[in-house]
């Protein structure tokens, strides 16, 4: 089923552009009428601010000193890339992204399998229960985690005092290791359901016949999983990883609420916030935002081109071929 539209598309590319029929023209017109307003709104709320931020990033501009605005070209970027603080913050952001996405992928897979295999009568309750954390607003969950671990109001220290290293005097948010662990745990708790849901969709797409054929051929459970299920889910996995990685790289709420960047836990989005909003340095803050945007863009390009993730269909070409065989 998936092979047919692609071949039509390929034919369309290779042959001379055919003359559009009245029906095609009407469909195109209807398409624009339906999608056009959304397209223009999207352009107004994304393209315009991005262009404005890029323009502002070339200036030294402090909101409370409007008369001193001056064009500095790439100086703001130079300052960022030559400052160790920026690279430390970049490293922390990357660490949080890699660790949370990796852990979420493993946990998400387990949850997806549980949801997939669950008894029909339990399926609804199970899916709802697993999705609850994802339904909670990030700021609210960040506060909940903060109050859980806070030395003054938290219960974790007293409940887990039997664990070596945890006692009543442990201030989780005063040093990097413990603070970043709590931040990542909160992030993982909150967004694992999202990855689980995407993987569940992938699991549902794996044809039962393939698994059955493998079983008949004598494949063990592990072999069925690694040789049949995972390869057929590659596209879904890549989409899940890409979406979560883009999200994790822009982490803000959890850090802002729990440490506000203390104990060296500052991340790129918080750096942009502090320069633009706290310091009112619009130029420098815009430069950080542009760098953050470029990082996200690079991750997207790397995934789409490098790993051939097709965001439109949720499948990749190699996956289709394997699936079709």
């Amino acid at each position, binding site marked *: 089923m998936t092979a047919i539209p692609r071949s039509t598309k390929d034919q369309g590319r290779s042959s001379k552009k055919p003359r559009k029929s009245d029906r095609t023209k009407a469909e195109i017109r209807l398409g624009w009428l339906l999608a056009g307003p959304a397209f223009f709104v999207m352009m107004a709320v994304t393209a315009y601010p991005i262009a404005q931020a890029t323009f502002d990033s070339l200036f030294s501009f402090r909101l409370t000193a409007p008369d001193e605005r001056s064009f500095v070209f790439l100086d703001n970027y130079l300052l960022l890339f030559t400052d160790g603080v920026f690279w430390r913050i970049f490293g922390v952001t990357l660490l949080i992204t890699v660790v949370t996405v990796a852990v979420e992928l493993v946990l998400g897979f387990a949850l997806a399998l549980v949801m997939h295999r669950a008894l029909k009568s339990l399926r609804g309750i199970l899916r709802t229960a697993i999705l609850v954390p994802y339904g909670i607003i990030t700021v609210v969950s960040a506060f909940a985690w903060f109050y859980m671990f806070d030395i*003054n109001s938290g219960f974790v220290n007293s409940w887990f005092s039997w664990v070596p290293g945890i006692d009543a005097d442990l201030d989780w948010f005063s040093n990097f290791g413990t603070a970043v662990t709590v931040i990542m745990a909160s992030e993982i708790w909150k967004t694992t359901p999202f990855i689980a849901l995407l993987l569940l969709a992938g699991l549902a797409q794996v044809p039962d016949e393939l698994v059955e054929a493998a079983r008949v051929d004598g494949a063990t459970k592990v072999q069925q999983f690694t040789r049949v299920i995972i390869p057929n889910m590659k596209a879904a996995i890549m989409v899940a990883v890409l979406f979560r990685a883009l999200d994790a790289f822009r982490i803000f709420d959890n850090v802002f609420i729990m440490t506000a960047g203390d*104990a060296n836990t500052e991340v790129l989005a918080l750096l942009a916030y502090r320069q633009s*909003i*706290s*310091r009112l340095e619009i130029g420098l803050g815009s430069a950080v935002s542009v760098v953050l945007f470029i990082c996200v863009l690079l991750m997207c390009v790397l995934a789409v081109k490098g790993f051939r993730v097709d965001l439109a269909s949720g499948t990749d070409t190699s996956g289709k071929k394997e699936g079709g065989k």
Partner: protein
Amino acid sequence: MKARSAGAAAAAAVLLLSGCGGEDEVPTLTWYINPDDGGQEALAQQCTEEADGAYQIQTSLLPMDAPAQREQLARRLAAGDSSLDIMSIDPPFIPELATPGFLAPVPDDVAERTTEDTLEGALAGAMWEDELVTVPFWANTQILWYRESVVEEAGLDMDEPVTWEQIIDVAAEEEKYLGIQGVREESMTVWVNALVESQDESILVDPSATAEELETNLDSEAGANAARIISRIGEEGLGGPGVASMDENQSMLLFQRDDGSFMVNWPFVWAAINAAAEEGNIDADIPDDIGWALYPRVDADTPAAPPLGGINLGVGAESEHPELAYEAIECIVTPDNQAEYFVTNGNPPSAESAFDDSRVEEEFPMADVIRDALDSAAPRPQTPYYNEISESIQGQFTPLSGVDEDTTPALTDTYIVEVLRGERLL
């Protein structure tokens, strides 16, 4: 159902329209207030009534913490928001808003009438470049709170001025905690500044210097003494295990405990501790065990310069009714209103005569100490770049255990200079 809701909507629209039509003649002034116990809202209503139709004041609530209040005000002012008729402004942020002309000038006659008996420290916080740019409303300062039982045990005479060294020694000997603010927030700058000012020195070399020329004076004997006090408390763990997250409220909770000894804090703690005792959240005897004195000295022979806080009232340069706004401000800041505000909301007056009010003496037995403290209080560095200086100090002087008298002050100076010159990130 539909018909009924449509009817209700139409009725609401009519009411709204007629309401708008009737109030059009009375100019509405918007007062951006910081969160309090409802005192500013009550004053707005009172002055609206007293204005007898000349104007009406509506309030708009600013965020909880002072830096977030500054952010909102600065962004609105920079965007030319004409709704900023009256603003409750924290003193350290006044130069930043006054320099670009975001504040409407205070008329001479208003300045004269509203500062007749303003306490010296509070007045200093309302000025910028020798000019009154805001009107002092209420003034805040920190005093030293102590547990009578602890000083009795240690034999410390609290009738005489005490030094930081003395209270640290007592806390260490008695194995008690000190209520200080060790969190990386504005309160850290408040503390460092008070320690430096208490030695007759200032953090800024020249407050009016531009960003390229501005320098700080922490790499000095005064800065080293300040760092020594902070680092000793950090190293000896006298701030308690949660010192890294200890703000004013947390230090009050620590002070209330059995292992509390001394605390430097704002007067709000008195009302809060009494309320906690009345509600049974803490031992009912604790308020009786609490004493107060002037802020501790750094040098035994030099009077302390306690921190200065509070709220001043400013008028936005783009306000459509600046004259009426100043008229309303004059109504708000009368000594009588300041006394009432102190009694009901716990925020001390900036006018000396307000302290003579009988209600004040009754509710705040330490009012005399607060008045003396306000007279000698020193504002934080007054410069348009205060935010950068404060955040740099907060970063370098936390955590307390990492502060080193030999390196931290010099590092902070260099850090501030590099940030202001645009050579490094903050």
